[in-house]
């Protein structure tokens, strides 16, 4: 029996956290995340959610509180946006390096300077190399479901998970969302049982200084050095795609909703031209694909749901019949191109089947981007690709570059 409610993306995330029975919440308000921090305060003060809410004085502290609370065995949650996420940057590394299953929502917003409160994905994209799993949601239902899934994933691989969704486009937009029953979520996601808890019964010195090489402990056992620990984090993230897919399958089996695991596809069965994006940009691309199909261009969409660990294998398979790939990104690796574009090109290196790839930067700082405009860009690229133009400089959509 589905309990469908109309709600914003921030409400969906808050309900996801509540259903996940989080025990410690620490968050600092920032537009467009603020509502999420407020709703969780409401849940906790009213007693609807039995948890500690630490009303911190900044985002660096918010994530630190989560790190330390997780170290003593609590399930923790935080959320932020844009400069708040950047302020956490040091602790993002600390959380992943500590191998803690923290879940955070990043309500995507452009980064200052100059200030913008509006949406793009530069904030989370810039945190690509911090050791976090990054999942990009395309609608509010997916946000709620993904927060719950994120704990299963994080607690299986001992890596933190960032659930990303677009500010305002999703965070402040009302959509129908099916809210799963708490007892069924509890069955899907039992209480967190940490493999190690810092306690006086088992005194340890966690995250101490390491030498470059491996060293013996007092019992003569050779222990990891810094590099072995880094390798183990990488190995855990390499294991994560299978866990993410299994979690998605199990979730679909219980709750009847399949968000695609690592990626999702739209009209790709006979597609020749593939539109690619993450989050709401990829949703928008599905409408662009519809428009292109009406003109006779066989367009489809691949939505990249998980950006880290990068699902290279799955994407290689997804594009094995593509005759053209057009990537739309709400962020840029300054001085080069979109990060998704670079990663996808690398994933397709020496793949049996090669296709031209064009890259568009769009929607930065909330610049409106309509399905028709995506379709126009994709059509122009398609025409160039048919003439054999494999590469073109990264284009800035709807941007005055004269």
């Amino acid at each position, binding site marked *: 029996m589905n309990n469908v409610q109309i709600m914003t993306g921030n409400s969906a995330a808050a309900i996801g956290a509540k259903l996940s029975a989080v025990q410690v919440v620490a968050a600092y308000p920032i537009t467009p995340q603020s509502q999420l921090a407020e709703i969780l305060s409401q849940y906790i003060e009213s007693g609807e959610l039995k948890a500690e809410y630490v009303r911190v004085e900044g985002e*660096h502290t918010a994530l630190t509180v989560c790190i330390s609370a997780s*170290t003593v065995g*609590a399930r*923790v949650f935080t959320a932020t946006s844009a400069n708040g996420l950047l302020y956490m940057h040091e602790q993002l590394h600390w959380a992943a390096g500590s191998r803690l299953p923290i879940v955070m929502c990043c309500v995507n917003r452009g980064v200052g300077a100059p200030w913008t409160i509006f949406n793009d994905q530069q904030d989370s994209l810039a945190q690509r190399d911090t050791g976090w799993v990054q999942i990009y949601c395309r609608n509010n239902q997916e946000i709620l479901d993904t927060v719950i899934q994120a704990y299963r994933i994080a607690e299986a691989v001992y890596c933190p998970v960032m659930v990303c969704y677009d500010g305002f486009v999703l965070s402040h937009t009302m959509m129908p969302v099916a809210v799963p029953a708490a007892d069924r979520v509890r069955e899907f996601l039992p209480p967190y049982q940490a493999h190690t808890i810092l306690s006086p019964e088992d005194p340890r010195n966690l995250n*101490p200084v390491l030498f470059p090489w491996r060293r013996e402990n007092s019992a003569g056992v050779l222990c990891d050095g810094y590099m072995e620990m880094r390798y183990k984090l990488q190995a855990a993230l390499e294991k994560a795609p299978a866990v993410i897919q299994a979690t998605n399958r199990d979730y679909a089996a219980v709750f009847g909703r399949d968000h695609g695991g690592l990626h999702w596809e739209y009209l790709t069965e006979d597609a020749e031209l593939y539109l690619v994006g993450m989050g709401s940009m990829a949703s928008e691309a599905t409408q662009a694909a519809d428009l292109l199909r009406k003109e006779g261009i066989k367009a489809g969409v691949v939505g990249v749901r998980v950006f880290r660990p990068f699902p290279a294998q799955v994407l290689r398979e997804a594009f094995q019949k593509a005759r053209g790939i057009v990537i739309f990104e709400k962020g840029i690796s300054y001085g080069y191109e979109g990060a998704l574009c670079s990663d996808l090109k690398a994933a397709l290196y020496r793949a049996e089947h090669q296709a031209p790839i064009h890259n568009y930067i769009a929607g930065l700082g909330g610049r409106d981007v309509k399905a028709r405009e995506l379709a126009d860009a994709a059509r122009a690229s398609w025409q160039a690709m048919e003439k054999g133009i494999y590469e073109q400089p990264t284009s800035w959509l709807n941007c005055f570059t004269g």
Partner: protein
Amino acid sequence: MPENLFKINAKEYILPGTRACQGCGLSLAYRYALKALRENTIVTLPASCLCVLHGIYPSTPVMIPCLNNSFASTAASASGLVAGLQAMNRTDITVMAIAGDGGTFDMGIQSLSGAAERGTDFIYVCYDNEGYMNTGTQRSSATPLGALTTTTPIATKQQHKKDFIKIMEAHDIAYLATASPSYPIDLYDKFVKAKKIRGTRYIHLSIPCPPGWAYPPKDTVKMGRLAVETGISPLFEIENGRFRFTGRSKSMAEKGNRLPVINYLEKQGRFRKMNIEQLHQMQRWVDGKWQEYQRRAQEQ
């Protein structure tokens, strides 16, 4: 309270072989602090001298559980431990955050102020060795006027030390005390007392540092005593707004036998370039603080 050394907890929580420098004042103070707090304690600390004292993975000389965290986050980490332990129904554990003056006066001030304002139930300890000693004696906002550091290498520090205790007092916290490793019973008593109080408790340790202050390692206890006897680092506690001198400072206040600061300054290489004007400034500054404390002690 023990009032004498024989009543101090005989158990050691730090095994021989720490990575502290020879003559480290911190290792003395930390030893007595842990004896007072005992087993049911979790420590959190940032990158600092104490992080080094705690040893190189996979061995540690300290038998109390410890969570290392980043430089700015000591009190934030304690807030997380307190919240996490509350969520896990482990409210019997004392959380102690401990950082140097760099991690307290400078980078850690935001998270400490936040935690204190929230009335977080923990003990925060600042071990103040008056500089960034772990990175090689650079200037901090706790470095006194006239001191040479590796970032004030020629002209010496031109400003007085930040009065951090006043900042902490402005948070209206449950308990505030100063202590010195040269007066271990006084230090021990204050930690025992702090452990019993709920809410935010702040203990300020005045820590002599042989390499940073440039004196022979054998003189650490003497240097700590001179800091107290000159009134530079008075021993006191503030409970519910009530100020009280303790130990040596209490008898000094009664007898009026405070030594001139020169007795302390002349024994440390870091003050070798201090000029006469700075010396007078320092004496006036210490006199002013001491008189203020005395006034407060008499008001009670």
